[in-house]
């Protein structure tokens, strides 16, 4: 991974020196194991701040919304797809961006590592496909492929779909991934069982909105949960309001979600809200053959009407 970092710094320095961008948005080393902090670099001499490793799971498209500068942005496969969506939705202009593509082998699931250890994790490092996890009294090694974030394990677009520079050679895409096994199980449940599943799924939610705010799609100036005239959703921790928030948010992302996993990664209480977003992703794929953010030339399916749109639900 250190060669990724070197290359990113080299490209960023060049872009800043040549004045092609006003700032580069990337990651800097975090203060906690498995955490990096999104940051900007405006001066060529500061590019040494930038790092790249398996803990860059936050979606940087989130930091582009409505910005006016010329920006160099570091983009994994999912980030690049959200950048495409941002461009289509007029949240940033293609001309403003120099996209530094990072072919990605998946991010590491910090929750999974934390849950495997009773003791506090003090550091996590990588060596030849192995992840070395250190606690106060022990050091354990794991296969990197066993520790991927759930969305990364299912990812079929690891390479950036749009880029101006590349920080490494393209990687091989994962083949024969069954993205929706768990969704099919839920689809098969009777209504009551589904309802109980969602009750349980969202019971820990504290309505902090980290999922919404980490999501590059959630840029509405006033979110529906904040509307007061009329008020759509109650503000309390009532489970109905909580579920309404999650369901509606998922619907707002239908046909736009790239399954970047930022929502789940950001959640302080570990809610698997991707169960909702992936169901809609699956529907969009099955009904319209659509995957979000692959091309600048196509409008998202819920944005267009076609005579062959499926309508078997209409009686």
């Amino acid at each position: 991974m250190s060669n990724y970092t070197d290359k990113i710094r080299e490209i960023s320095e060049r872009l800043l020196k040549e004045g092609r961008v006003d700032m580069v948005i990337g990651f800097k080393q975090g203060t906690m194991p498995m955490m990096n902090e999104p940051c900007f670099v405006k001066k060529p001499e500061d590019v040494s701040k930038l790092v790249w490793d398996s803990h860059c799971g936050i979606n940087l498209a989130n930091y582009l919304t409505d910005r006016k500068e010329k920006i160099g942005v570091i983009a994994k496969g999912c980030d690049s797809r959200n950048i495409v969506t941002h461009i289509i939705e007029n949240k940033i202009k293609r001309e403003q961006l120099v996209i530094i593509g990072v072919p990605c082998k998946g991010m590491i699931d910090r929750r999974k590592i934390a849950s495997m250890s009773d003791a506090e994790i003090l550091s996590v490092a990588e060596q030849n496909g192995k992840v070395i996890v250190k606690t106060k009294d022990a050091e354990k090694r794991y296969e990197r492929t066993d520790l991927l974030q759930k969305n990364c394990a299912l990812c079929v677009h690891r390479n950036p779909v749009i880029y101006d520079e590349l920080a490494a050679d393209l990687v091989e895409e994962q083949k024969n991934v069954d993205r929706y096994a768990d969704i099919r199980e839920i689809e098969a449940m009777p209504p009551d069982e589904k309802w109980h599943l969602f009750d349980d799924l969202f019971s820990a939610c504290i309505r902090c909105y980290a999922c919404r705010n980490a999501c590059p799609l959630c840029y509405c100036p006033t979110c529906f949960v904040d509307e007061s005239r009329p008020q759509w959703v109650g503000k309390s921790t009532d489970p109905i309001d909580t579920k309404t928030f999650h369901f509606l948010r998922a619907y707002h992302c239908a046909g736009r979600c790239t399954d970047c996993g930022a929502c789940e990664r950001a959640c302080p209480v570990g809610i698997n809200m991707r169960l909702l977003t992936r169901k809609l992703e699956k529907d969009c794929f099955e009904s319209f053959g659509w995957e979000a953010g692959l091309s600048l030339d196509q409008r998202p399916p819920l944005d267009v009407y076609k005579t062959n749109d499926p309508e078997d639900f209409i009686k």
Partner: protein
Amino acid sequence: MGIEPDRLHFSWISSAESTKFVEVVTGVTEAVRALGPHQKFVKTNVKVA
């Protein structure tokens, strides 16, 4: 979402299709009545401390 399939109906009815309209409305009413009152997205009163 846990909502019974029969509780939600979609239909195209032209303003000229009065018979179809009656059929659909009757059908929807019967289907929903058969399911009984909806319990799931109903907020009774806020459960609070």
